[in-house]
């Protein structure tokens, strides 16, 4: 929202400057001083991004060109990337990552939206919202520990099923693919729906009461009101929630590591786990670096494509 507003202002300012360039010319000295000030304010942010993101990425990309065991390194060019393409484990890891992206887009975002709308203006809504938001306050490792006790073969879920006479429904929840990936997505949904719910609630509060009232006078209600009025009004917030979900799902690590360690075998590995295993378990620093370069490229490409499509300057509004 803020970005749009600033962008719009910038467009207006640029247009205004262009129009006024001819007759009134700003003094050169003032322009330099302004540039110095702008540079001074930008410098800390640029330095931080360069030191914490750009330089490490460049070092990682450079390291991916070596066969490196942490003690000795040998230049191998693009051999690590060629190995990736022929590695069946990498293919499975990529597929799991796609499952995570789809799963965490569909479940937490839709559930968060539905729960926000349903509990927004009802009497006991606050109680329901609190129940959904509390898991969001738990750490990833606490959540994983809890779900481990639930989903182990002799865990609470199977014991409960057995106790109520549904023993036939018992499963090895974490031992078979794709079931293990699906239940881990469900566990993540349990934890992260609260965040989506909060953001959508904020979005709901920004919808002008007049808009809802006008729609109601025009005869809109129920599902029609939700789909034709509320959802379009929530678009800016949906952009944020979906964008965050995409990035978070692409770098899924903690819950998978703690529940299955990417196993059995490498069945439930995501790209982030493959990177960790290659680097820190197998001590193949070059290969792990290659996986992280691919992962970074995927995250940046997905974020850029999504935001480029969704966040556009409101040219009409500025005119």
């Amino acid at each position, binding site marked *: 929202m803020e970005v749009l507003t600033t962008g719009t202002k910038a467009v207006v300012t640029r247009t205004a400057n262009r129009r006024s360039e001819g007759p009134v010319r700003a003094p050169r000295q003032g322009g330099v001083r302004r540039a110095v000030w702008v540079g001074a304010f930008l410098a800390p942010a640029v330095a931080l991004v360069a030191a914490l993101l750009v330089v490490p990425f460049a070092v990682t990309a450079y390291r991916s060109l070596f066969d490196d065991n942490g003690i000795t390194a040998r230049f191998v060019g693009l051999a690590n990337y060629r190995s990736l393409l022929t590695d069946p484990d990498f293919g499975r890891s990529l597929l799991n990552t796609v499952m995570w992206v789809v799963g965490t887009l569909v479940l937490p975002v839709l559930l968060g939206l539905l729960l926000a709308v349903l509990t927004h203006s009802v009497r006991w809504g606050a109680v329901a919202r609190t129940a959904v938001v509390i898991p969001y306050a738990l750490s990833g490792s606490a959540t994983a520990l809890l779900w481990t006790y639930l989903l182990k073969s002799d865990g609470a879920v199977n014991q409960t099923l057995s106790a109520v006479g549904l023993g036939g429904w018992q499963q090895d929840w974490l031992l*078979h693919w794709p079931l293990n990936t699906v239940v881990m997505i469900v566990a993540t949904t349990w934890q992260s729906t609260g965040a989506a719910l909060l953001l959508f609630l904020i979005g709901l509060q920004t919808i002008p009461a007049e808009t809802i009232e006008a729609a109601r006078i025009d005869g809109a209600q129920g599902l029609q009101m939700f789909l034709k009025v509320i959802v379009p009004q929530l678009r800016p917030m949906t952009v944020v929630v979906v964008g965050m979900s995409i990035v978070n799902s692409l770098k899924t690590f903690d819950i998978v590591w703690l529940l299955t360690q990417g*196993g*059995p*075998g490498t069945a439930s590995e995501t790209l982030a786990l493959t990177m960790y295993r290659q680097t*820190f378990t197998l001590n193949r620093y070059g290969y792990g670096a290659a996986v992280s370069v691919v992962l970074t490229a995927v995250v940046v490409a997905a974020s850029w494509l999504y935001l480029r499509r969704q966040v556009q300057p409101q040219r009409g509004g500025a005119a």
Partner: protein
Amino acid sequence: MGLIDLSRTTSRRALLASSFAGAAGLALSSCARGTLSRPAPADVLSLFSDNPSWNSGFQDAGRQLSRLSGYRLAPQGVPNVSNYQQIVRMSAQTDSTADLIKWWNGYRLRDVARAGILADVTAAWDEADRRGWCRDPALRASFTSDGRQYGVPLYKSYYAVFYSKPLFARLGVDVPTTWQEFLHIVDTAHARHITPIAAGGATSWESSIWFQQLVNGLDHDFYLDLTAGKRSYTDVPCRQAMEVWSDLYRRGAFSSPDVSVSDLPGRFTQGRTAMCLYGTWNTGALLDAGLKNADLGAFLLPPPPGGNRSVVVESGVLAVSANAHKRQAAEATARAWLDPSVQRAWTGFLRDTSADPSVVPDVGAVREVVAQVQKEHVPQAVRYWEASPPVLIEGNVQDLSAFMIDPTPSQAAKTVASMQRRAEKEWKAWKS
């Protein structure tokens, strides 16, 4: 909105200045040199291990060591094995390293020894041999790289079947001496709805436990050749071992593969599980978790039909860093490590066996295993985890984990084929 009136308490400039000072202080402190970049105090040697719970044991051993070498130990533990390995690999190349390092033997030791980060401690083995503390050529070979030794044995564990004595009494069975007797116990427990054997490994190295046991039990020499890269995983003894393993699953011998060894004391106490094949290094943890010494027994698994009696052993490594601040003192400590007085203090804490066969802790289960090993002169083989190049082992362990989820003959065939493909690739990489 009640804004805070900064002028009354502190000026904005002062606030900004103190914020910058705080940030600068934090930045500078992050650049400070760590404690390992300086030598430890006078009579102290720093020791790095991946097990913080061993710290008090190292201190006990250090008190004995200080009488012999003049130096005691200051252990530092990093609880995560992966993190620990990274720290050692990186720090051992710098001046910010501990004097003594805990590591693993076999190919894991060779992996770092050939990179030059460990000191040669062949003299310590020579002295142990001369004094009769440890004359074990097979164990010594697993500490060797290019004919020199790069660590002394921290302990020597045997892989044995732990069992619940009260449960065996309730089932009316005794310690088995043959494979048939062992199967009888499995069937008896299964018929009484008791899990015969707890065997985890769905997502951990523990999937290699039954593989190494069955291959080594069926053909000890083949196991040695297989792990040395001289035989194939698709050869008969290996396929036979997978068949036996698969057959045990068909009989209902094993727990679900996501069982954790930390659940074992509870399972034994509640009578839910009868046995568990594991390293004797876990004895202390089992006793600390509430199992009574008198209720815990252990025996060597009888070999399957056609096999021979042999046992898998595991040994941790106490190594000297090549860049140690007090290298001479660390080497002297390594020479004194196998002295019986040090070993008694150390194994008394660990409740596991020493590389010195005369030092045995006062724990029933461990004494039973040692007595059996000494009486029957059982041949020994290095644990699978350390017996081949690490990358090969890590990959194969994952294949074995996948097999435990689907322990069918067809999956067994796929598993050994995959292990062999990896073996061909990784042995080539290791030798290059």
